[in-house]
């Protein structure tokens, strides 16, 4: 009896795992199928909305073009992103370590945060030409603020009681930072890094829109003016894939570095239905 019920229980667990794997896939397939059939049924012209299979064909045909331009955009995105990390994290540390410095930079920061980054892109072209630099800078600017702000919030999130505990141990400022404040801030830091990861691609593409002769943003403009709608869709798909991969890499790093973090935990405990 007992063994029987255990095996059914294990089978149920496996069924659920399998289902949770298949369900999202099935959803995507249904969506694509409706798209495909809809386009055929209503005789939608290809320049207006191509079928998914048509887009796939085009992507395969133009694979070298997509990858060549894709690498450029990936490079701009990564350079801008890591620049944002390299500047943003130390800035947040400085802001949270000194009240005076915080008061000094916060109003300016707020101003630059509210400035629509997209509107600044043409200015960068004026300053830095049509090379790769202005694209990196737009990617930098757009991913910078979530990193600074979330890191600063994280560094301020340590409870007063934890500080009391540290002080009762005679901890030095450096020890308080390294052993208490910094680890406490990591979940916030990573939520900023993840938001920034999704924005960085957009930044690079916007930079390319304004003036470029390579990159996926440039390819979008060219395909647009040539009415190559299928290739345009393929480009959008590639951009999306780049963004997704980048996001999941950061999320993977997060799960490696801060396995104690709550969101990680709840995910493990409650398998998605």
């Amino acid at each position, binding site marked *: 009896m007992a063994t029987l019920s255990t095996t059914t229980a294990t089978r149920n667990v496996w069924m659920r795992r399998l289902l949770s794997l298949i369900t999202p896939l099935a959803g995507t397939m249904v969506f694509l199928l409706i798209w495909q059939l809809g386009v055929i049924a209503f005789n939608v012209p290809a320049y207006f909305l191509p079928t998914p299979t048509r887009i796939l064909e085009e992507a395969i045909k133009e694979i070298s073009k997509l990858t060549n331009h894709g690498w450029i955009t990936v490079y701009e995105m990564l350079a801008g992103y890591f620049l944002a990390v390299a500047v943003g994290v130390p800035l947040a540390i400085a802001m949270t370590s000194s009240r005076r410095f915080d008061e000094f930079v916060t109003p300016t920061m707020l101003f630059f945060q509210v400035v629509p980054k997209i509107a600044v892109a043409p200015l960068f072209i004026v300053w830095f030409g049509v090379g790769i630099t202005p694209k990196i800078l737009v990617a930098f600017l757009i991913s910078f603020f979530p990193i600074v702000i979330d890191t600063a919030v994280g560094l301020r999130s340590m*409870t007063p*009681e*934890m500080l*009391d*505990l*540290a*002080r*009762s*141990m*005679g*901890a030095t400022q450096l*020890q308080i930072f390294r*052993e*208490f404040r910094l*680890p406490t801030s*990591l979940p916030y830091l990573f939520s900023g890094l993840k938001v920034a990861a999704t924005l960085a691609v957009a930044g690079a593409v916007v930079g390319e829109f304004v003036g470029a002769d390579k990159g996926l943003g440039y390819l979008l403009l060219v395909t647009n003016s040539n009415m190559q709608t299928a290739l345009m869709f393929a480009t959008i798909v590639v951009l999306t894939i780049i963004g997704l991969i980048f996001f999941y890499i950061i999320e993977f790093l997060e799960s490696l570095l*801060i*396995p*104690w*973090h709550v969101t990680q*935990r709840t995910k493990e405990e409650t398998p998605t239905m």
Partner: protein
Amino acid sequence: MPEPFIRFQNVNKIYKTKNGAVEAVLDATFDIKQSEFVAIVGPSGCGKTTILKMLAGLIPHSSGAITIGGQRVDKPQTDVGIVFQDSIMLDWRDVLSNVMIQIDIRKMDRAAFQPVALELLKKTGLEGFEKKKPYELSGGMRQRVSICRALVHDPPLLLMDEPFGALDALTREQISMDIQHLWMEKRKTALHITHSIPEAVLLADRVVVMSPRPGRIVEIMDIDLPRPRRLDKLPPKFNDYAGHIRDLFKSAGVLAMD
């Protein structure tokens, strides 16, 4: 007569806030002898935490004098172990490392104190959990970890701020027993803050009873009961002590009769 280990003399604490001054503690005078276990009991908001933090040098007192071993308290004290109301776990460290942080920060000898930490964890029923992360523990287990952390460096003074506040009655009793056990072994000077009358009487040599805000000391009672005190064999005198404290609270208007 030698000077008592800890001495509060006419200590006042006034918090300055935006809405004016808050008198948290008024004219507190009491002392704690070496190796004595003192409990402070009083209603919520009467200034118990304030007294503990002033003693630990974590907040300044407004007037009066606080001394530990004859030394004035004017900066954070490090010769202490503190158990806070919240267990304050470092989520990124496992149970053993949460205890050992005390040793790491003080740059004490890790190799020498690791066995001490393991022994404490064993005594508080946490054997086998050394490698677990705090989020894998129950609230009571976390609080036990924080008690071990407060004791591992063998401090001459142990301060506990409602360490069982968030726990259920059964766990409270169990950890009370753990604390009595540890204290009888080491005879540390201890200050234990609680709002539970039975807990104060069970653990303490002396109980400081406080009135509601602004916090004043109403009475300091000697608890003359043999140790180890056991919850299942409480002498009639236990109820007399508890009843007396209850009466003090009733006349202060804290406990309403029904």
